[in-house]
């Protein structure tokens, strides 16, 4: 690839842009149209329950992009990205709780769980969350800020490899314990739920769901282009160089810690975005999102799809979750074994994931 080309040409060749436009058309136009336009009972009408499911997949795909950005391109395996996802989800959940108003079970301006705990006023942490714009920016700022602080210490201390992964795993576990406590002030183990509306629209209304789905897919496509830009820019190539020969990068005059920190923080913010889009579509956010296993699963999506490819990671997230939503119904006890077997099989036989398989077939 010639680094003197204009930006759009550096991102993708013409043929790849056609594929991208095709995917955008199907997901942004065709799917919502099929869900809304044909009359009820028509064979081409998309069942209404699929829309929030697809929206959820889009959120997971954004997470996969975020994980791939640092794992595939910087060689940093995070087993704690669930933290950033959950924090984004909680920020949006707090807005949704606040916009229930006095329509909760206890007819109080305070969220139900606070009334239940006999709290008399809103804790400081909840101030401002009645404003959508504030909550939306917090969904990015809080995960980003935590990642920045955590990464600053970790990368300055040159913690890498498996040690870094273990610390991220501990981070998500610690946060899970924290969020389980009622005193923390985010609804304890029940989390935040019973949402009624978002920006004034009734949250269970089919048209609201289509709207959320469209926003999620648009966010996914935007996140993809952002990540693609980052990895083809000189910045991204410095990052990949750090993965291959960190000392050479330093002796070229780059500060590897600053580069890792930048990508790490962007990655966390993308997860926050995904979490914020996820909560209104799923209707609940609770500490189970912080389980260490959830974060491990995120890494599996990327491994299965093919790391260092971005589109492979996103497809991996959709494919694994599609399989999950089907298999957890068909064989509820077997799902974790199947996921583990899939991970082992991919690692052993297709170390580059599905995307690598496609590339291998072409050549």
């Amino acid at each position, binding site marked *: 690839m010639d680094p*003197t080309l204009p930006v759009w040409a550096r991102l993708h060749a013409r043929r790849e842009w056609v594929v991208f436009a095709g995917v955008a058309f199907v997901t942004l136009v065709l799917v919502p149209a099929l869900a809304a336009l044909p009359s009820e009972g028509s064979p081409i009408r998309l069942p209404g329950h699929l829309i929030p499911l697809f929206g959820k997949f889009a959120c997971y795909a954004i997470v996969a992009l975020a994980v791939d950005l640092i794992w595939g391109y910087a060689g940093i395996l995070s087993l704690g990205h669930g933290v950033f996802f959950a924090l984004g989800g909680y920020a949006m959940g707090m807005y949704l709780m606040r916009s229930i108003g006095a329509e909760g079970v206890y007819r109080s301006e305070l969220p139900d769980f606070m009334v239940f705990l006999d709290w008399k006023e809103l804790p400081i942490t909840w101030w401002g969350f009645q404003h959508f714009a504030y909550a939306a920016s917090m969904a990015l700022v809080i995960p980003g800020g935590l990642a920045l602080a955590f990464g600053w210490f970790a990368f300055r201390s040159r913690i890498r490899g498996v040690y870094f992964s273990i610390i991220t795993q501990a981070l998500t576990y610690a946060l899970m314990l924290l969020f389980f406590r009622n005193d923390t002030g985010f609804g304890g183990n029940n989390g935040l739920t019973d949402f009624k509306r978002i920006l004034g629209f009734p949250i269970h209304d089919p048209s609201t769901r289509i709207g959320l789905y469209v926003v999620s897919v648009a966010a996914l496509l935007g996140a993809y282009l952002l990540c693609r830009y980052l990895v083809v820019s*000189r910045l991204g190539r410095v990052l990949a160089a750090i993965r291959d020969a960190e000392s050479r*990068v330093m002796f070229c005059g780059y500060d*590897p810690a600053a580069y890792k920190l930048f990508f790490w923080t962007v990655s966390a913010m993308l997860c926050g975005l995904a979490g914020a889009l996820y909560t209104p579509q799923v209707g609940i956010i609770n500490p189970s999102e912080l389980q260490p296993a959830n974060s491990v699963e995120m890494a599996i999506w990327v491994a299965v799809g093919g790391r260092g490819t971005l589109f492979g990671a996103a497809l991996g997230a959709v494919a694994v979750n599609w399989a999950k939503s089907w298999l957890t119904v068909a064989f509820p006890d077997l799902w974790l074994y199947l996921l583990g077997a899939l991970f082992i099989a991919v690692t052993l036989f297709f170390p580059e994931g599905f995307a690598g398989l496609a590339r291998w077939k072409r050549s």
Partner: protein
Amino acid sequence: MEALVTPEASAARGMHAVETGVVDTRQGVILYVEGLTVSFDGFRALDDLSLYLDDGELRCLIGPNGAGKTTLMDVITGKTRPDAGKVFFGNTIDLTVLSEAQIAIAGIGRKFQRPTVFVGHSVFENLELALRGDKRVRSTLFARLSGEEKDRIDATLATIGLAGERELRAGLLSHGQKQWLEIGMLLVQEPQLLLVDEPVAGMTHRESDRTAELLISLAGEHTVVVVEHDMEFVRKIARKVTVLHEGRILAEGPMDAIQNDPRVLEVYLGA
């Protein structure tokens, strides 16, 4: 040494207090190493070592294994911190308080013993990333290669004989080609001081001859330090040779004098 102005303040200013092309060499000396001591678990890798490099000279550093050659390189480039002693780049830049990246920006380039290139990138991209310029995150995010820079890379590709491998992934190069690519990466970085660790290891005779020519042509405009085991190669390029032994300087002088120095013969050739 009143010539050494201690710039504690400049060190505290951080990354971009150091810029390329501001090395003060008015005394004619580009590198001062004084009383340098480095120990690892009680083993003295460098023992009260002092060394001065004149601006523009080509110096060969030889010595048996464990003499401290690589440790000295590590200290100069910020990889290892000394237990005692001073290392100044020009009159004003204290290298013992700077990070590896800061030292590279100040104008010291290093070629490793084992060729270290970015194996996932093309030969061209390797040079692009090494190119002298702003190495901060913000500027690399929006960096575009200018026509001038592109020409510079192409000229360097011709110099290192890799013009035909421009788009090849660096991981696919032969050992000797990787060595050359790494030297090319040093060249586009435009350092004033080049530290070159075993440049001809794994090279054929012809490649080694070309490397010798290249290093000789670089001296003058740059200061070049070559660490090498291959005595034939050292004889080919050496003006002045420094012999290290057990972390100290054993002898220093022109190649002929060194070759006939009985102390050098004893430790180096085991005679």
